[in-house]
């Protein structure tokens, strides 16, 4: 019987609510709001309360998928990133940098989002950057 | 009764009471408490030698004679004519069992050594496929209606007491005599005592009219006394009944149409019956030597206990409720349990026989068929949704749900489909087949489409 609660931050939006993942014998079994969290004070929204839902979900993606002959097939990260780099390069060469847009996510951290816009502006050369939390 | 006692497939369990019933149609488990009879049923031949020998001469009131005679501590029920015709020792009357002191002449007298004071109460477990409840009725206690002066004169008797008076095995060997031991010259018979009366029972007891007419006939025939019948209506509904009513009228019985309102015990010991003769529209007062009350049939006083035991419901009058008043008159809402006779409603002998035969036949049909059809309108547990809280187990009126491995488990043979569990389950883990939430919601949407 190894029971513990692991403090983490909700990844669903930029609020960053504190929560505990309840872990029993190495498996996440639930969520507790962090009552001693200075900011969120033991409160969560429906997304935070269900943060554990995707962990063991059968639909969860564990590797990148590449569409081949109309079907999505599992691929390695190296393979997938090479493909993305290659295609972005081709599109930029053929249609210019503004034919590409970057959409970032609240599930990423500040730093990750910074890096994405940096990629967009400095590497690709476009200001087409947006974020789901801006809606 | 004799035939039932002799039948090889019928076991009579006398002095017994059902303690517990579980299971369901086809597989009932019945626990029966069998009280000691203190007489070995296999050895007793019913010769009556023990009764003769019993030293308790004073005895106790004989219930079979409605208290008009007395019997001893050991006796053969029904004045020696009971079924089975074997002796029984009454714990409360037997000097040995009651007071611990007796010479036990009965043991000496018994030619087969059947008397056994060491018998103990025992619990018998039975497994049966169907059950017929035939617990009968209780006599209305006329003391509840003070106007009839019940208990104030030994010459105010009820119909059953009169039956004993006029029976050849009764206390007077069939002679109709007043308490003073003389033939009455005027007799009143009062109908509807405790029946059709807002102060007692609203229903008609159905049998009283005809037995009251019979009593009138017997009094006329055996004593020649004048007979006054106080009645509201004569309900002579059965085959040959109306003809009998006419015959009694022709025998010179006076019929006074009006409820017997009051019996006054006069100073000379005679009884004065007061009533309104509604055909003449005048009050009447008639002095008689004997008054016979046609008392109502009532549910047994422990009917609630029996109902709970067998899962029966009771109608407003207190009798056991049949499944349908016309089409299922001897079925109950517990499959495999049937009603016979007056525990269901007042009945006369032919109706009781018909009812009982029907119930017996239906009980046999189940056993013979070996399988039962159940209604598709039952509950259904959706196990994935069940959290095992057990509220449904508490709620089920038929004990059809139990917890199995922390999940609700439904026995659909027991379920009647009331759906109370469905309404109780907080997690929607039980569906009422044919009355699902989805179906009812669709109906709600449907009816509210009306503007």
């Amino acid at each position, binding site marked *: 019987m190894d029971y513990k609660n692991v*403090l983490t931050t909700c990844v669903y939006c930029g609020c960053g609510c504190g929560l505990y993942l309840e872990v029993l014998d190495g498996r996440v079994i639930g969520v507790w709001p962090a009552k001693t969290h200075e900011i969120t004070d033991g409160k969560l929204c*429906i997304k935070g309360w269900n943060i554990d839902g995707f962990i063991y979900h059968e639909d969860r993606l564990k590797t990148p998928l590449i569409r081949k002959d109309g079907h999505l097939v599992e691929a390695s990260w190296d393979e997938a990133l090479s493909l993305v780099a290659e295609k972005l390069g081709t599109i930029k060469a053929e249609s210019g940098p503004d034919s590409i847009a970057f959409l970032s996510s609240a599930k990423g951290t500040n730093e990750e989002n910074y890096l994405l816009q940096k990629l967009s502006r400095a590497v690709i050369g476009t200001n087409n950057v947006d974020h789901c939390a801006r809606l | 009764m004799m035939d039932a006692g002799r039948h090889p497939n019928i076991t009579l369990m006398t002095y017994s009471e059902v303690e517990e019933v579980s299971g369901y149609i086809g597989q009932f488990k019945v626990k029966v408490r069998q009280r000691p009879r203190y007489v070995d049923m296999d050895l007793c031949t019913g010769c009556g030698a023990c009764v003769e020998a019993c030293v308790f001469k004073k005895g106790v009131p004989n219930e079979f004679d409605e208290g008009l005679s007395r019997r001893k501590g050991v006796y053969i029920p029904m004045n020696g004519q009971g079924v089975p015709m074997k002796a029984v020792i009454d714990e409360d009357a037997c000097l040995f069992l009651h007071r611990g002191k007796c010479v036990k002449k009965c043991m000496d007298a018994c030619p087969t050594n059947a008397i056994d004071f060491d018998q103990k109460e025992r619990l018998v477990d039975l497994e049966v496929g169907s059950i017929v409840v035939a617990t009968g009725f209780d006599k209305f206690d006329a003391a509840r209606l003070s106007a009839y002066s019940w208990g104030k004169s030994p010459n105010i008797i009820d119909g059953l007491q009169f039956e004993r008076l006029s029976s050849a095995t009764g206390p007077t060997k069939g002679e109709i005599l007043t308490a003073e031991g003389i033939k009455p010259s005027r007799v009143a018979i009062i109908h509807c005592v405790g029946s059709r009366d807002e102060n007692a029972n609203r229903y008609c007891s159905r049998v009283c009219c005809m037995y009251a007419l019979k009593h009138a006939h017997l009094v006329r025939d055996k004593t020649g006394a004048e007979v006054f019948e106080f009645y509201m209506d004569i309900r002579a509904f059965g085959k040959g009944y109306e003809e009998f009513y006419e015959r009694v009228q022709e025998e010179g019985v006076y019929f006074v149409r009006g409820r017997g309102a009051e019996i006054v015990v006069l100073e000379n010991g005679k009884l004065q019956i007061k009533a309104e003769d509604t055909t003449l529209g005048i009050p009447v007062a008639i002095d008689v030597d004997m008054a016979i009350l046609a008392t109502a049939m009532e549910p047994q006083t422990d009917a609630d206990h029996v109902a709970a035991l067998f899962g029966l419901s009771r109608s407003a009058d207190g009798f056991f409720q049949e499944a349908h008043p016309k089409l299922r008159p001897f079925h109950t809402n517990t499959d495999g349990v049937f009603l016979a006779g007056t525990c269901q409603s007042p009945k006369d002998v032919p109706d009781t026989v018909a009812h009982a035969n029907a119930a017996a036949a239906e009980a046999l049909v189940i056993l013979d068929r070996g399988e039962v059809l159940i209604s598709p309108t039952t509950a259904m547990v959706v196990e994935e949704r069940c959290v*095992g*809280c057990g509220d449904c187990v508490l709620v089920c009126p038929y004990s059809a749900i139990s917890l199995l491995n922390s999940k609700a488990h439904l026995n659909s043979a027991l379920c009647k489909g009331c759906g109370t569990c469905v309404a*109780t389950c907080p997690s929607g883990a039980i569906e009422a087949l044919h009355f699902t939430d989805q179906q009812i919601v669709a109906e709600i949407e449907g009816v509210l489409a009306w503007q």
Partner: protein
Amino acid sequence: MNEQPVPSIIEAIRQTVAERLQELDGVVALRRSSEGVAPHVFQQGDDLSELEIVPRYPLTTVVSRLHKSFPEIRLGIVARGCDERAFVEMAKRNQIDPDRLFILGIACTAEEAEECHCAAPFPKHLVVGKPVAPGSPNPVVAEYDNTPLAKRNAFWRRQFAKCIKCYGCRNICPECFCEDCAMEDPAWVEPGLLAPPFPVFHLIRAMHMASRCVACRQCDLTCPAHIPLTVLYDLMRRDMEATLGYIPGEDIKAPPPLSVTLNEAPLLVNTGHMD
């Protein structure tokens, strides 16, 4: 965080837990780490100086999960009055095995009792601390009989309009342990619709709470919209006590009154339907 308990109480309960761990498989309590305070199962050898008694978490839920996962395990729980009451209602509904749970009761402080409007701020199995007087009843509840229908209506409409349907009230509730929740059934609660005109969400929950709510106030505390849900549940509890004599969490032998017949749990008031 700002209400540090009297040191002697926490020392005493740490001592008790240490002793009971000799014979129990674990004790459910709160543990402080660098990450904050969270529910924990203390086992032999654990550093009991980490054991805390604030803030309040529904620890019986942890017990239930462990009892279901380990059918032999014998646990203790550091319990306040509300935890003990929650245990009683959960045990009644087969979510905790009462033979495998031992209450190590602590009393709440007078301030805590007042903050919770708690009618019984200490468990029956009290081990540490002195019982304090009940807190004063919630003034909204106390005044409710004199509150006209229209005012009640306006009050709750305002409250329910704030609801973001996070289901936190249900999630934190020790008495909400269903596998499938009626409030997630689209037949009853419209999915994807906030603050519908007819507040089915909150009314269903209030009905389900009537014979279960042990007034632990966890739902009030966790509601991000600050809806005073326990006002509604307190009113329901009051109604249940008046009509059926039932106080959730009071008696482990009393069956849930709405599930049994009138013979087993009679109505104490005549609702005009007795014939």
